[in-house]
């Protein structure tokens, strides 16, 4: 079938309705400032950033595809972190601390978190601008939630990584 129709040479689907029965949801909770998510990614790592980015994504109406992409990227970040902890473990199977690996681990986790933020912000910024154009709500502070995510989910990430290594006998 031809892609063009009529005397105007206009693509068929251009003037077909695509908004379905779309109703703009009344603005729920305000999203967080996209820049603030960097601090969570930097200090909290992949898991903390993924959770916070998904919540923020939902608030700004990010599409399901993009939300799944954040989840996938978060999982890849977690795997990268796992591999890094495997090569530079802070504790070994005998529960001996390896303080010489601390700097590498800290640096690695921050690089992974920051990279995750930079990749995700490339598509989250557009959604955020569209949200602000639509709802004009401004932003909510991430201070309390951000600290909770960094402490809680950052610890959870370590427990997941070392728990998996202990259970599978890698360590």
């Amino acid at each position, binding site marked *: 079938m031809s892609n063009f129709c*009529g005397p*105007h040479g*206009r*693509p068929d689907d*251009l*003037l077909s*309705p*695509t*908004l*379905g*029965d*779309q*109703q*703009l*949801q*009344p603005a729920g909770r305000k999203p967080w400032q*996209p*820049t603030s998510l*960097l*601090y969570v990614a*930097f200090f909290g790592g992949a898991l903390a950033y993924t959770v916070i980015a998904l919540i923020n994504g939902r608030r700004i*109406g990010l*599409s399901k595809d993009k939300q799944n992409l954040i989840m996938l990227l978060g999982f890849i970040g977690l795997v990268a972190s796992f591999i890094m902890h495997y090569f530079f473990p802070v504790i070994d199977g005998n529960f001996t601390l390896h303080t010489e690996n601390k700097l590498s681990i800290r*640096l690695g986790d*921050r690089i992974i978190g*920051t990279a995750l*933020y930079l990749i995700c*912000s490339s598509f989250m*910024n*557009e*959604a955020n*601008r*569209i949200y602000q*154009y*639509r709802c004009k709500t401004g932003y909510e502070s991430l201070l309390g939630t951000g600290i909770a995510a960094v402490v809680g989910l950052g610890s959870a990430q370590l427990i997941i990584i070392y728990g998996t290594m202990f259970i599978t006998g890698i360590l």
Partner: protein
Amino acid sequence: MDNADQALLLARRYIDIEQPARALETLDKLSNAPMQNPDYWYLRGRALYELTRYEEAINMLQRGLGQRPDYTPLLYMMCNCQDNTGNLAEAERAILAALRLAPEEPAFLCRYAYLVAKAGQMDKADRLVDEAARISPQDPMVLHARASLSLLRGNDKEAASHSREMLAKDPDNPVGHYMYGLSQYNSGKVSNAARHFGTAVRYDPKDQDTARIARQSRIASHWLLWPLRPLYKLGAAYAWIAAISTVFVLCIIGQYRIAGYVCKIYLVFCLYSWIMPPILRWWYRQR
């Protein structure tokens, strides 16, 4: 010209000079309202729209469309009202009906582009604006739509280029100044932004949004905030990444003393950026 025609003319004039309440009063005073005239319903709907009484405006427009379903100004206004109540589907229905009647109207194509952009369908919005540009490439409305879509995409350079085109055609266009100011503000060029917002406010002093952002950019371009210009240009996130990376690299190569200085300088910058803008805002409010 009879009384009704004169009242419609007067109401239109009131709307043009942004006095919708008086337009409504003029129409209310008509003893024998010209119910058959679609302009009557359009002007009532438009006045109510300007007064942000969208539900009542929709009601008026529906009555007008009941008599003249092919009157495109009614459909266009219906799209605006439905959009403002958050009913995108109804807004789309109205603008598509208008486009069926006037498929070559760039204003309708651009309006539809804004609507789909609001729903996140940026590719379709781009195609609609392309189509409007094919019909009327130099239309300021098309350039405005292009600049708006670029801003939504976060492409400030492209938005600046489209706004410059708008200003090249009409240097007194307040929308052009506003759009150019916005693109400059987003890129951290606050002095340039302040100048263009200021011009936009002079042309349209009633626009509260423009006045607010003009004030913000004037504060941001104050000489006391000059040290923060690099931060504005780079953006808070990238400035943070740059500072932390520098400190890490300096630590890795053993330059702990220099790393310490970089940390201190960055902290001073942060403190300055937290303290000084609120002080300036307070000072401007006092003036």
